[in-house]
């Protein structure tokens, strides 16, 4: 897999974001380069939730940050609301920041523990001159109410007094403060308990409907992704393997790696809990990725062709794309 290609792009759509041939490499020593993201292309249609899934280290966070130019990608283009970000000046980029927000995995450490909640939320509003104190106070109350926190109770408290789930609500409120167009959520529920996880996922859905947001939802958990996304992009070792709507991806899995991901989700039912389609081993080093299809070293269907030639994304049914020489029937 680990394919390249652009068959899944939708130039006719109302696209908020178009990413093409995005590559991010980290030079970590004289002749050591980590190939974190290698030629990834995708687009995002207004109102869509694109999920990016894959194992730890496959480049999900790097991809999310590269879209925001944190840091700028090694090569490739990122076009946001019809403007190219990779060549934009620092000053112009800064002007675009309010419309692109990011929420992180660890809700507790992403909030400043010294600041009361009201300050955490007021900060972006003040920096961007969004009104006088009265207007800012009203906005803070609106944001807290939106994420189901009682402003009277939480306004003056500091983040260390809150649980993980509450901190994530505050992070979400903060990301909404500047009326963004797009929010990149990087594993927003991975650090949370199952019981709290569901609350945050529902909240994200509500916020999306209420504020007309477009979301990128990064996760390693396919079951979580299925609950919230409209399109899923599966990544492996810096490349795209499969793109499909979530139900189609699950019911009609085409890529051998996706199948392994589906088979690894623990099922809370003792009669069905035996894991199937397990893949062995762990991903190879991104400093020295395999030739051809990057998944071939762990793939049960790999042939010589897979070592010699990189598979390209192609459409196998309407809206379902796979980069594999021998897709599952």
């Amino acid at each position, binding site marked *: 897999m680990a394919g390249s290609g652009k068959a899944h792009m939708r130039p006719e759509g109302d696209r908020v974001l178009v990413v093409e041939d995005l590559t991010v490499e980290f030079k970590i020593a004289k002749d050591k380069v980590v190939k974190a993201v290698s030629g990834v292309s995708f687009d995002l249609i207004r109102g869509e939730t694109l999920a990016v899934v894959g194992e730890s280290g496959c480049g999900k966070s790097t991809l999310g940050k590269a879209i925001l130019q944190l840091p700028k990608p090694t090569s490739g283009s990122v076009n946001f609301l019809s403007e190219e970000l990779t060549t934009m000046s620092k000053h112009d980029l800064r002007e675009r920041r309010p419309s692109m927000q990011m929420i992180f995995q660890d809700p507790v450490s992403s909030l400043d523990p010294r600041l009361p909640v009201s300050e955490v939320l007021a900060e972006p509003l003040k920096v961007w001159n969004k009104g006088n104190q009265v207007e800012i106070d009203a906005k803070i109350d609106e944001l807290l109410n939106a994420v189901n926190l009682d402003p009277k109770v939480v306004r003056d408290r500091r983040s260390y007094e809150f649980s993980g789930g509450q901190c994530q609500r505050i992070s979400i409120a903060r990301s909404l403060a500047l009326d963004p167009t797009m929010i990149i959520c990087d594993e927003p529920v991975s650090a949370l308990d199952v*019981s709290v996880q569901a609350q945050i996922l529902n909240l994200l859905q509500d916020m999306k409907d209420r504020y007309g947001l477009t979301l990128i939802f990064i996760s*390693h958990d396919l079951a979580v992704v299925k609950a919230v996304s409209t399109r899923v992009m599966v990544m492996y070792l810096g490349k795209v393997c499969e793109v499909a709507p979530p139900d189609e991806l699950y019911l009609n899995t085409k890529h051998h790696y996706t199948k392994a991901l589906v088979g690894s989700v623990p099922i809370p039912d003792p009669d069905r809990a035996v894991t199937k389609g397990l893949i062995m081993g762990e991903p190879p080093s991104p400093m020295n990725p395999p030739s051809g299809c990057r998944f071939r070293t762990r793939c049960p269907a790999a042939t010589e062709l897979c070592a010699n030639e990189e598979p390209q994304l192609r459409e196998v049914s309407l809206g379902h794309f796979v980069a594999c020489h021998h897709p599952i029937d």
Partner: protein
Amino acid sequence: MSILLQIEDMSVSFATPRGNLKAVRGVTIDLEAGESLGVVGESGSGKTVLSRATMGLLPGSAIRTGTITYKGQVISDLPANEVRDLWGTGMAMIFQDPMTALNPVRRIGSQVTESLTVRLGMSKKDAKLKAIELLKRVRIPDPEAMLRKFPYQLSGGMRQRIMIAIAVSCNPELLFADEPTTALDVTVQAQVLELLTELRKEFNTAMILVTHDLGVVAGHTDKIAVMYAGDVVEYAPTRQLFNNMKMPYTEALLKSIPRLETPTGSRLPVIEGRLPDPTKDEPGCPFASRCPYVQDKCRAEKPPLTDGGNKHFYRCWFPIGGAK
């Protein structure tokens, strides 16, 4: 089968500035040789304190009461060092974060062979051969090269495999695993759980598996204790628990798990509210404020642990499907 471990009416509390914090409130469970018990519940329900209290690994600020019997001998009254000797090679542990459990400045080789030379009295040469065999068993490619590496050079999954190799190296009778796969990726989690189950069957090792994930315990345990606010609120053989759930809390926990077959875009059922303050002793069922089946009696009186037959116990006045 013979009873390996018995915990009777165990309570643990901590003296805190806000008052006496009751983390475990009179828990009774037992474990047969080779059996696997899952302990589940949301964050803060007392799972870790329960298992650490059993191992005698509590901080000084903790007060523990109740009786622990291991292979017929009461060990809860013994001083810590005697308990440790008694556990000896019989008990091993695996924690959530293998990085903190492994010594960062020592090579993997010396950490794996240590217990073999110290506890089993093997020669250095034999211990090395055994270590290589163990690393093969936990499916580490090129075990000889692995012996020379340091923990920071390994991925989380590899480190957890090393911890498992160390844990099973002395053929323990009892394994404590506290969230052993929570820090791992789903694919690696599945591999590690399979491996644990396979090794346990081979060596007839009993296990206490602590996790907040009902999906993880479903496939890898013989019985389950569900904890809520320091109490075991449901306790049953795994199949019995899933097929004949009695406790509203367990049901709520199960429903809130996102599943692959959930239709996209549907709202997930949530458990509103939160655990009661562990420093307070409110009357009634501790789940009452969050329970969809709550009635007046629940708010007035705490339900006792009820024997529902078929080794199924629960703590509820109005169990799902009615009382026996």
